[in-house]
């Protein structure tokens, strides 16, 4: 960072005055936590007792053999409590909220994983909790909504704009400016105003720290490449951070190619030609926007990647050439998912499956003594409705029709 909160040309804190004071307090608390080894230890203890840290690094021997190239390793963030990497950031922020003495947390959510994790944290720590979720995503991720509500959170469907992640973020900011005194906004990704990108990246860096130790132990040396999907970019930053200063490790971020980059229906900010520099949602980055600066509608089969902006830290690493960006289409994602389930008995989330797509394209080009790591940011069983629909699965449809018939008898 040069200027406060900037990573190269990107980042900053473009916030309304009403939030200025609360950001001062948040910055102060974050600095204190960063400089307090006990805090990090408390975080590690929490994550190893309440969640499943360290998460395993699985050697995908069948997939490795199938592609006949690099040894494929999968970092299993799906085995984290609540089923995704999101819990790392949320539990860390939860500890900070306790220190700051606030009693209420709010969060935006796209795929629902961040909302789930936040609702879980709020239940454990005894905070009131409100989750903002785009109406479109509520439809796509109904099971997560069910669990959030069961854990005591209030889930508010957002009907503004494109009714997806960016609109949920705007709604959460509107709540925050109204209830700033007692409320902390648990921002879910490495975006938004400073200090969120750095802070979320710090909590998520636990992924890469573990992966680094694990790959050395299991493979004996550094991986050749690491793949992670990129929506806002939190799981990617999490796994990349430890390896940024290891020049022999190539880092690859995979964005949502949607129906294909040439169709315009995608969410690829850094690997398409469609994004440009802008300032929205409190930070400066590459946004998918028109010439006037109005944000465009994005598309991805994966709600968690369906977002107009991208981490300012990743925008900087992209500009420096340290991270390469690629895109995976919805269609490619479905076949990578199918293959991973059949070969390894592992169900990646639709978001995570984007990273698998690119890894599968490149694994055959590497030699058998090289290793690659795929960061599996979350598990796919939450996506059962979307995945079953995308596979056009006949027995699932029958089940739904049957269940609906049962319910309609009650009403």
């Amino acid at each position: 960072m040069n200027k406060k909160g900037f990573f190269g040309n990107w980042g900053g804190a473009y916030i309304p005055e009403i939030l200025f004071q609360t950001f001062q307090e948040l910055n102060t608390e974050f600095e204190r936590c960063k400089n307090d080894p006990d805090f990090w230890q408390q975080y590690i203890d929490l994550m190893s007792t309440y969640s499943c840290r360290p998460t395993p690094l699985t050697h995908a021997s069948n997939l490795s053999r199938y592609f006949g190239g690099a040894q494929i390793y999968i970092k299993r963030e799906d085995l984290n409590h609540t089923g995704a990497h999101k819990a790392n950031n949320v539990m860390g922020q939860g500890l900070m909220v306790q220190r700051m003495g606030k009693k209420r947390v709010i969060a935006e959510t796209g795929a629902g994983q961040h909302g789930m994790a936040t609702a879980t944290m709020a239940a454990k720590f005894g905070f009131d909790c409100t989750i903002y979720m785009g109406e479109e995503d509520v439809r796509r991720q109904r099971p997560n909504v069910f669990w959030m509500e069961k854990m005591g959170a209030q889930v508010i469907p957002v009907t503004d704009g494109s009714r997806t992640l960016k609109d949920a973020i705007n709604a959460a900011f509107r709540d925050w400016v109204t209830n700033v005194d007692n409320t902390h906004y648990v921002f879910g990704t490495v975006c938004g105003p400073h200090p969120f990108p750095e802070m979320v990246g710090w909590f998520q860096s636990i992924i890469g720290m573990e992966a680094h130790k694990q790959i050395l132990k299991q493979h004996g040396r550094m991986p050749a490449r690491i793949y992670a999907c990129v929506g806002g970019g939190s799981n990617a930053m999490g796994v990349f951070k430890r390896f940024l200063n290891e020049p022999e490790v190539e880092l690859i971020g995979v964005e949502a190619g949607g129906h294909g980059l040439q169709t315009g229906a995608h969410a690829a900010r850094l690997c398409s030609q469609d994004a440009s520099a802008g300032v929205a949602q409190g930070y400066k980055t590459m946004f998918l926007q028109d010439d006037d600066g109005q944000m465009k509608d994005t598309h991805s089969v994966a709600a968690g990647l369906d977002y107009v902006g991208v981490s300012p830290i990743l925008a900087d690493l992209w500009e420096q050439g340290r991270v390469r960006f690629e895109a995976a289409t919805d269609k490619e994602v479905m076949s990578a998912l199918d293959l991973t389930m059949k070969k390894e008995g592992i169900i990646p989330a639709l978001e995570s499956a984007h990273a698998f797509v690119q890894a599968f394209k490149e694994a055959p080009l590497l030699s058998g003594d090289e290793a690659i790591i795929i960061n599996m940011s979350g598990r796919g069983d939450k996506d059962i409705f979307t995945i079953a629909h995308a596979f056009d699965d006949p027995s699932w449809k029958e089940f739904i029709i049957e269940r609906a018939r049962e319910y309609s008898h009650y009403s």
Partner: protein
Amino acid sequence: MQLEQQLRERLKQKEILLMTHIVLGYPSFEANREVIAQMVAAGVDCIEMQIPFSEPMADGPVILKANQQAITAGTRVSNCLAFGAEMAATHDIPFLYMTYYNIIFKYGEQAFMEEARQAGIKGLIVPDLPPEEGADYLRLAKENEIAPILIYAPTSTDKRMSELAGHGAGFIYCVARRGVTGTKSEFGEEFNTYLARCRAATTLPLAVGFGIQDREDVTALKGKADMAVIGSRTIKLVEEHGPAAVGPFISSLR
């Protein structure tokens, strides 16, 4: 004449000034034209014209919807700038632009300021641009004799207020309460203390906005603030009763 002087001239005649708000292109530029004519005829002292943005983070449901519908109807930034120039040339009151920073950033700060100056625009309100991030913006605004209007909030400390005063010009926009635009505010003891802190921190005129809806609210501000800001209320009025209802409403306020 620069914005602050213009307002001070007007304050010689009136106990409190009125600023109103419109969203450009909502429901249409034609309606904007008529609403502004009514506002000016009813004695409004200053008008902020919001250039719509797809992510209006500080706005409540009424203005949010207006922004979205204006964009959906095809409102472009260039249309807004042309309309702004037309209004400033037609009516003898100061006109401001209110928008979010991305609109200015994408247009090019220099080009935007120069056009605004040529159009006779007197000030700019950009709620998501704190002075820390707006060095170029502040410099260019002043070079072009456009007042960068800064915002105070009830959460601003005294120290922060004096710091902001040093960067701002024209007037200070005091947000009446926590929250977004469009919800009613209470003007009790806590509010009076806040306003006294605002007054102590700056010599610039004070405008108070967020949730001012009727004559009672405007009266409550007399002697404490220099200008009352009516935002969402007139937008709603136009939605419900058409542009013709605006004049009588404004006249009823003081």
